């Protein structure tokens, strides 16, 4: 029996000719990632090791992004702890305020992940790098500590679900609509313990930013990872951003899949996930009038330059509705600078939005846009769980940057079509 793309990468990293779904393996890691919330717990765990040094100071990335610039004293202590650890161990890829960005946008941009890599990160959205043809998955802090110390991690080889993407998305339809559609179809545990393998000629019509968004939310379907084949778009991105050698793996023709879904991208509509689960999806034409208080455009899911350009294309024509807060967060310093140079930030500010320094902030209810009781937010982030962005009675509607920007204009959940766009 052949292997899936994920299985081939894991077999190579485990030094095995072949692996099968369900097999327990120990794989060599290309990179271990942590952030300002998960790293302090991992650093504390490191103290318990007999061997306390890191396996490779160049293969660890520590990104201060969740509660920075420090939102309070306790957060400042966490960052201080990580900063000291990075300094003591000579960690090359420590990204503090001034250089940081939201980790999953930052690592590809810095060229730290390429095709064929095996990456673990103490953050559930580590699955983002599947867009580059890498195996990457989220773990907890203890796994991160073990990875930092040994350069290895244990995995159960996942079985797979294949998504064959065909056709070309309509204008204003982006990677976010694709992944929300999929989660709506299979549910929040539809890919539990499994790899999500995206294939098909429609992928050529998806930009790297679209693919990052799709892989990013594989975890929202319970997936272990979400992986794309490597094509010209991937290779061009890696050559632009990285000097690392990449390796292309392809699924065998006789690889086994537990299920195969075919999705014609040209038929997809703007999709919105209603509270309080990402699987509660509705297409925009099904949404009745729902007034909102806030819009957030940003996060590891949708803080890319294309997301900001999309929002700006709407907000340059129409202002933000009075009384609504529209918060825009470029995912990295580089994207922020690019948005300034392209005039996007000027557009946002003139439209009545605020633009923040990169941070995960409101996505997880940290700071920079917390919701009061009964408030509603349309957000380009990835989770709409109870209390995720603030009070337990507040509501989050997940959507694309196009829907978020259009909703900021109308003050209710809207697609660009409602503005005649």
């Amino acid at each position, binding site marked *: 029996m052949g292997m899936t793309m994920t299985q081939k990468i894991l077999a190579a990293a485990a030094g095995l000719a072949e692996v099968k779904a369900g097999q327990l393996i120990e794989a060599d890691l290309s990179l271990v990632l942590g952030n300002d919330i998960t790293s302090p*717990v991992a650093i504390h765990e490191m103290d318990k090791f007999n061997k306390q040094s890191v396996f490779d100071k160049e293969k660890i990335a520590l990104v201060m992004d969740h509660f920075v610039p420090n939102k309070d004293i306790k957060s400042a202590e966490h960052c201080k702890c990580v900063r000291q650890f990075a300094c003591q161990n000579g960690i090359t890829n420590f990204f503090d305020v001034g250089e940081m960005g939201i980790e999953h946008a930052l690592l590809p941009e810095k060229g730290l992940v390429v095709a064929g890599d095996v990456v673990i990160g103490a953050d559930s959205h580590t699955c983002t790098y599947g867009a580059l043809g890498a195996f990457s998955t989220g773990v907890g802090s203890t796994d991160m500590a073990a990875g930092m110390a040994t350069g290895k991690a244990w995995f159960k080889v996942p079985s797979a679900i294949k998504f064959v993407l065909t056709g070309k998305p309509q204008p204003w339809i982006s990677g976010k609509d694709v992944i929300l559609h999929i989660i709506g179809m299979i549910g929040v545990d539809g890919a539990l313990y499994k790899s999500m393998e995206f294939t098909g000629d429609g992928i050529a019509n998806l930009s790297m930013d679209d693919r990052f968004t799709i892989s990013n939310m594989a975890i929202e379907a319970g997936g272990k990872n979400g992986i794309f084949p490597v094509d010209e778009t991937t290779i061009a991105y890696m050559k632009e951003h990285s000097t690392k050698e990449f390796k292309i793996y392809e699924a065998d023709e006789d690889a086994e899949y537990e299920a195969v879904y075919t999705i014609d991208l040209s038929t997809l509509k703007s999709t919105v996930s209603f509270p309080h689960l990402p699987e509660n999806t509705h297409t925009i034409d099904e949404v009745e009038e729902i007034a909102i208080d806030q819009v957030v455009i940003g996060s590891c899911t949708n803080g890319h330059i294309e997301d900001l350009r999309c929002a700006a294309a709407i907000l340059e024509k129409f202002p933000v509705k009075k009384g609504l807060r529209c918060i825009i967060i470029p995912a990295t310093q580089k994207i922020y600078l690019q948005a300034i140079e392209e005039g996007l930030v000027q557009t946002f500010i003139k439209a009545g939005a605020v633009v923040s320094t990169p941070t995960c902030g409101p996505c997880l209810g940290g700071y920079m846009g917390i919701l009061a009781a009964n408030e509603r937010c349309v957000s380009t982030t990835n989770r709409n769980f109870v209390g995720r962005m603030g009070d337990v009675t507040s509501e989050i509607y997940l959507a694309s940057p196009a829907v978020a920007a259009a909703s900021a204009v109308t003050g209710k959940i809207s697609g660009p079509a409602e503005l005649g766009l």
Partner: protein
Amino acid sequence: MQAKGIVFKYGDNVDTDVIIPARYLNSSDPAELAKHCMEDIDKEFVNRVQKGDIIVADKNFGCGSSREHAPLAIKAAGVSCVIAETFARIFYRNAINIGLPIIECPEASKGIEAGDEVEIDFDSGIIYNRTKGTSFQGQAFPPFMQKIIAAEGLINYINNK
């Protein structure tokens, strides 16, 4: 190894944001985290939970964020075991890695109600509902994971290797 306690019962998709909301993640002290465990889904949990008590839930327990603070908070709150129909994969790994016993058992999650007194024998995987006089066979861990659990967590397991 055995556990015995009173059951707190929850439904599908209990996510790590409700187990320990991110507004408390500026601390990584388990005792501090335990004070807010389950706060957004069950405000009374921290007032009522006794050492040894058991959480029973339906599908996909622990979905969402990878925060290890979630199993740490549950363990520090005194919970001796979590039984669920299924667990989200990162929570599953984290629980094993920090030594919080968890058992997948769809029949038990259906056959146990809030307030029931339940006993678990981890060696045999048998879950006994004392209140109702029924028992269930939980899924045993693969030998590799049993070794991690026996070593009381991943770090000790690696140290012992």
